[in-house]
């Protein structure tokens, strides 16, 4: 069957098997920026935003979200114009192997849209589904706080 998504602002149409999950459909169609492999919704590396809300794409049936807006890490910034969150993760040293990074940043992105002034607890809660084995999370939380600052500065300009 055919499905249509608006991925990072661009409309894309894919041919899918009705039982497929979103992760497989997206990666098969060139979206290598989405990682993941547990297929149980437990590691978070496959996180994407669906209508702005973070979900594990490995547990989302591709057919179910037909027509929706999907945001991947490429939708929030790029090498020339990184989003303050991407910049913050780099500056604070929150990126080690980088495999969990796109998913973690998207969860943080969704948090800051809902709550531009999160506490440490808010940040930890928002990121609790993105497992990381490299950083031990501390610098990731610091990066989100730094991003809050950068976003505020950006608004003041």
């Amino acid at each position, binding site marked *: 069957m055919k499905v249509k998504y608006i991925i990072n602002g661009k409309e894309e149409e894919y041919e899918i098997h009705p039982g497929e999950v979103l992760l497989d459909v997206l990666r098969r169609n060139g979206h290598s920026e989405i990682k993941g492999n547990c297929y149980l919704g*437990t590691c978070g590396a496959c996180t994407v935003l669906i209508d702005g809300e973070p979900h594990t794409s490995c547990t989302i049936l591709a057919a179910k979200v037909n027509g929706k807006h999907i945001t991947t890490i490429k939708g929030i910034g790029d*090498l020339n114009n990184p989003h303050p969150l991407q910049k913050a993760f780099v500056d*604070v040293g929150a990126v080690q192997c980088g*495999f969990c990074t796109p998913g973690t940043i998207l969860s943080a992105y969704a948090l800051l849209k809902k709550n531009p002034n999160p506490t440490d607890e808010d940040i*930890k809660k928002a990121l609790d589904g993105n497992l990381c084995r*490299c950083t031990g999370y*501390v610098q990731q939380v610091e990066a989100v706080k730094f991003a809050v600052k950068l976003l505020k500065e950006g608004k003041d300009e």
Partner: protein
Amino acid sequence: MSNFKSIGKDTKKIDALSLATGQPMFVDDVSFPNTLQIKLLYSPHAHAIIEDIDTSEAEKYPGVKMVLTYKNTPHVPHTTAGQGWPEPSPYDTWMFNEKVKFVGDRVAAVAAETEEQAVEALKLIKVKYKVLPAILDPEEAMKDGAPIIHDEPWITGAYDPKKNLAAHIDIRVGDVEKGFKESDVVVEETFETQYAQHTPIEPHVTITYLDEYGRLVIRTSTQVPFHVRRIVAQALQIPVQKIRVIKPRIGGGFGTKQEIILEEICSFVTLKTGRPARILYTREEEFISARTRHPFKVKVKIGAKKDGMLHAISLYALSNTGAYGTHGLTVASNAGSKTLPLYNKAENVEFISDIVYTNMPVAGAYRGYGATQGYAALEQAIDMVAEKLGMDPWELRKKNHIKAGETSPIFRALGEGREGVTQYIQSCALDELLEKGAKEIGWFEKYGRPKRNGSKVRGVGMSMHMQGSGIPLIDMGAATLKMNEDGSFNLLYGGTDIGTGLDTVAAQIVAETLGIKPEQVIVYASDTDLTPFDVGAYASSGTFVSGGAVLKAALKVREQILEVAREKFGEPDSKDYILENGKVISPKSGKSITLSEIAYDTLYVKNQHQIGATGSFVSPYSPPPFAVHFVEIEVDEETGEIKPIKYVAAVDCGVPINPNLVKGQIIGALVNGIGYALTEEYHFTPSGRMTNPNFMDYKIPSTRDLPEIKVILAETYEPTGPYGAKSVAEININGPIPAIGNALHDALGIRLHRSPYTPERVLEAIRKSKEKKLEPVDPE
């Protein structure tokens, strides 16, 4: 130190922005047309002979191109351990074996057009097993009459396979029996550590293809590209020159990728079909069939004099190496070699270890590498000695630890598979770590004064550690540096950045040496065709060994640059020249020239030559980093739940070349260690099948499982390391089990002898201790 321009700076990790913006950098982010997908069939039995295997139906399944079993693959004994040659691990496996030795051992592989077809075809493979009695416990495995797991006639390098002994270690210094008799206080206890898995978020994944010249190219998620090349050549009986191994960005390794696990199978399919091939582990396969941490049972005995000086230490380590002996000997060696020298004041020391085969999942390299298991036992026994002496365990450690200028006979006696190398400590900030860490946690106010709030009790615990920086006289790395027109440099080196940031550290070392910015160093690493050799990412060798090679190459290039400048300036001597901001300056004459001018000149104009050099580094030194950990925990007496409240890691890793990256290593390791101490373990059925191969039931820490974490760096200058640096990658994973175990004792006076310290185990220990208190005291 403060004069450094690049060393000691939080240089942005050179790949961080690319990773944070989702560039295709990992093995599986690039796909090739016409790729065959490979899936593996595993043994449901812990111990069985494959009497027959019929793949005819599977071969006929639509889309299937090839089915592999022991019948049609090379029978070349080798080890899967990614170690230097000759590997100190037994050659105890073929690509596929005739006998399966654990639930999860591989039986066959199907290569098909799609993963789904491969999975369906696997179901059609008919295997006739002759099930043999399985041996799941290492102590049982060593007994007379136990079934022999490795009865292959072709096995080599195992200590005594008929007794299921993959290896055996016996090191004695002085006379421990005499030492114990001479001691005023003797403590003896046994501690067990559990199976655990690294769970890198990126699983093992390999893609192979033939290039335009018909050479095999292996694109794989590995820590050891050069070992992959050599061992694949060996296992497939093809020349090394026919193979190229490329290591792109890796999504974490932690030791499980210090193995040659999937590369031979994938390569074989490509060689036989001419087509690209792809294979990766599902998360479940990662748990069951990749590698794990060796479960240890460590018996510690310590004798001390009443003034607190340790006099005799004996460690007996029983290591369960699982079905294959990869890393068995060396991990066990580290349980002694990275622990005992810390307490070098004890003149009588003994380390004995049996490394035993069982029909259990295969253990291999895992961050900490035996030191973790050794310290889990030793650091708790140290606290027990302090208790018997009526001494603060902080005092006991302060009195006994190794100091700068000192050595220990263990360094030489216990190497990794061969004799070690005597080390003299040249940098050690242990006293500063002890002071600062204790202050940060409030040790002297809190220790011995557990704080109770209803049923919740708080206590503090500590542990002290050393590790190493590479394996002396064994680990070698090399780097090639060459100059470009604009004064930038290409650094081609074998060092293997698995996410740690080693490439950035390497750039900083070049930048510091040549007076340029790290951004002007283009790093390309770990490609067996394009970069010189490096053993790979293990033994905490990155900064020290790979970085050492980079420094060597940079120093040679520096000389070349200065010579060209000298000639251009017409001066007799370049000794006092300064390299700064991309320029060479002669301070006496004030003359200066930019690196770019030198480059244009030497590439195009006069005396043309490529400014560049290769440096190799191998060292008799392996300077230990040091760490002291402190933790405050809160135990719920009624439920047994332990909550870590605050964790302090005080670390001496020499000069931190990139403090942010160092901090990342420290925190990442200790959080992993907290998982290992409190929640991570494998569960098995009585027949040896692992029952929790997923994150739902193998619990690793999330953001909501963290204590308050404080990192304290005490800087020292290590003369043998590049710009004074030592390693930091492994050491901090060793702290949590003993620190938390000691804190539990401070809080409730109980000690657990098995990790992880789950609420069920803690509650049981609380109950037992309450019962003991009620019993009439037995005169001993």
